C-alpha cells in the first residue's frame, strides 16, 4: 500500500446551517508527548446523525471520547467543547452530569453482569428514580427504542450476558437511551457484529435520530453513507473535510478524502 502524504493545512470544513447540538473549538489531544489530535473545530447538528470516518489511528475515536470527557484519565485535552453555551472541557465541570446528557456506546458490547432489566435500571436508580412503575416504563420504552423489546420482553430477569453480540449492543444503546440523554456518541458500535445485527443497529439509529443527536465513529464507509446526514473525514490526527454526507461521498473537495473513500488507503 503506498501511503501518500497529504497537506494538513488544506481543509474543507463547513458551518452547519441548523440548530447545533454541540461544537468543538480547536480541540487538541495529547497522549504524553504524542500529539494525537490537532485543532479539531466541528459543529454537530441537532437531531441528525453525524459520522466520523477515517483510517485506523486517524484520531476519530480519540476525538469522540473527548466529547463526554471519557479521555480524562488517559490524555490531555485542550480547546473548547461547547454544549448549551458552556465549555464542558473546563476543570470545574461535573463530568458525571455531562455524561448523563452526552452518553456513549462502545465498540465492544459491554452489558453489566446483571439481568437485562437491571442493566437499564441500575444507573436510573443511582440517579434517584425509585418508582417501580416509572422504572418499568423506562425499561420498556428504551428497549423498544433500541428495537430489542420483542426479543427479550419475556426474559427481562435473565442475565444480559446470555444475549448475542448484536442484542447486547442494542441493550447498551437502550441503557443509554433510558437515561434520556441529549446526544448519543457511538464508537464503531457495529464493528464487532455480523451484517444482520449491523442492519438492525442502523435501523435503530434511524429511529433514534428523531429524538437524539447522534455522532457515530465508523470505519465502514457504506454505513456512513447509508445513515449519516453529515460526515467528517479524519486523517492522522487532523480533520481534513466536513460536509454533507452526499457531498463527501460524491464530490469531495480534498484529495485525501477522495482517495480514502475510493479505497486507495486505510
Amino acid at each position: 500500500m503506498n501511503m501518500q502524504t497529504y497537506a494538513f493545512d488544506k481543509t474543507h470544513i463547513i458551518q452547519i446551517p441548523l440548530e447545533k447540538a454541540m461544537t468543538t473549538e480547536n480541540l487538541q489531544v495529547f497522549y504524553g508527548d504524542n500529539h494525537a489530535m490537532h485543532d479539531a473545530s466541528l459543529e454537530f447538528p441537532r437531531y441528525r446523525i453525524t459520522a466520523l470516518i477515517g483510517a485506523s489511528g486517524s484520531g476519530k475515536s480519540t476525538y469522540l471520547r473527548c466529547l463526554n470527557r471519557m479521555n480524562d484519565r488517559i490524555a490531555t485535552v485542550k480547546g473548547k467543547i461547547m454544549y448549551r453555551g458552556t465549555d464542558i472541557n473546563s476543570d470545574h465541570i461535573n463530568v458525571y452530569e455531562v455524561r448523563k446528557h452526552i452518553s456513549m456506546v462502545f465498540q465492544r458490547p459491554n452489558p453489566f453482569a446483571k439481568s437485562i432489566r437491571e442493566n437499564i435500571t441500575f444507573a436510573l436508580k443511582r440517579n434517584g428514580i425509585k418508582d417501580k412503575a416509572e422504572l418499568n416504563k423506562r425499561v420498556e420504552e428504551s428497549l423498544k427504542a433500541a428495537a430489542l423489546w420483542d426479543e427479550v420482553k419475556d426474559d427481562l430477569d435473565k442475565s444480559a450476558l446470555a444475549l448475542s453480540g448484536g442484542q447486547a449492543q442494542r441493550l447498551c444503546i437502550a441503557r443509554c437511551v433510558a437515561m434520556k440523554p441529549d446526544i448519543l456518541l457511538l464508537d464503531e458500535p457495529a464493528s464487532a457484529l455480523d451484517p444482520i445485527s449491523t442492519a438492525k443497529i442502523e435501523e435503530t439509529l434511524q429511529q433514534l435520530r428523531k429524538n437524539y443527536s447522534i455522532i457515530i465513529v465508523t470505519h465502514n464507509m457504506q454505513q456512513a453513507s447509508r445513515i449519516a446526514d453529515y460526515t467528517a473525514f479524519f486523517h492522522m490526527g487532523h480533520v481534513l473535510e466536513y460536509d454533507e454526507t452526499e457531498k463527501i461521498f460524491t464530490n469531495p473537495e480534498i484529495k485525501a478524502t477522495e482517495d480514502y473513500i475510493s479505497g486507495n488507503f486505510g
Partner: protein
Amino acid sequence: MNPKTSDQLATGVIYALVAAVIGILIFLLGYILMTGIPHISGHFLTSAAQSFRAGGGVRDQLFNSLYLLVLTLIISFPIALGSGIYLSEYAPENWVTSLIRTSVEVLSSLPSVVVGLFGYLLFVIRFGMGFSILAGAIALTFFNLPLLTRSIEESLQDVSELQREAGLSLGLSRWKTITGIVLPAAVPGILTGIILSAGRVFGEAAALIYTAGQSAPTVNYGDWNPMDSASFLNPMRPAETLAVHIWKLNTEGVTPDAAQISSGASAVLIVVILLFNLMARLLGNWMYKKMTATR
C-alpha cells in the same frame, strides 16, 4: 530423537510429576483420615479436653478455632477490601504502588513464629492484653491481610475494563461504578479468596501459641455477653485452638490417649478445611449466578 518421541517423552514426564503430586496428597490425606476418623464421635466433638485422664474431647478447641477465624476475618476483611480496591482501582502505576505491593508480599512471607513472637511482645505483654483470642486474631490478621488483599485485588482486576467504561459513560461516579458494578462482578473471586485464606488461618498454630495461648478455660456456652469473663464469646480469654491442641498433645501430652486424640483432632481439622474449600466453590458459583442473574 524425532519430534514425536520427544513429545511423548515430555508428556510422560509431566504426567509422572502430576501423579507424584496427587500421590503425595492422597497419601497424606488418606493417612490422616484413616488414623483419625475412628476416633471421632459425637462425644469427641462435644466434650471438653482432659488434662490427665483419657476420654477427652475437642469441643472447646474446635469452637475456639472457629471463633478466632471469625474475629480474624472481621478485622482483616474490611482492611483487605479497602486496600484491594485501592490497589486495583485507584493506585497509579509508580514506585509508591510497587513499594506497597512488595510490602504486602514481604508480609505474606514472614515466618509465622516471628509474627507470633512479635504479637506476644507487642499485644500480650506491651499492651497488656494477656493471652487472648483478640491478640491471636490480630496476629492472624497479619497473615491473612496479604493473601486477602491480593485475592481481592486480583478478583477486581479480572473484571473487564469495559464494565468500568460502561458505568462511567452512564454518568455514574467512579465510586458507584466500583461498588455497584465492579465489586458485584468480583464477588465470587473475593469469596473464594476469603475461604481459602480461612483454611490457612484455621490450620495456623505457631503464631497462636504465643498470642492466643495454650489453655482452654472452661466457658459457659449459654452466656452470650462478650463482656463476661466466663462467656464463650469473651475475646479477652485465652483460647487454645485445634491446631495448637494437636501440637501440644504431641509435645507434652500426658493423657494416656494423647496419640488417638491427636489423630482425631487432625482429622477434624482436615475435614473442616476440606469443607471450607468445597463451600468456597459452591458459594462462589451460587453467588455468581445470583449476581449475574444467570439461571
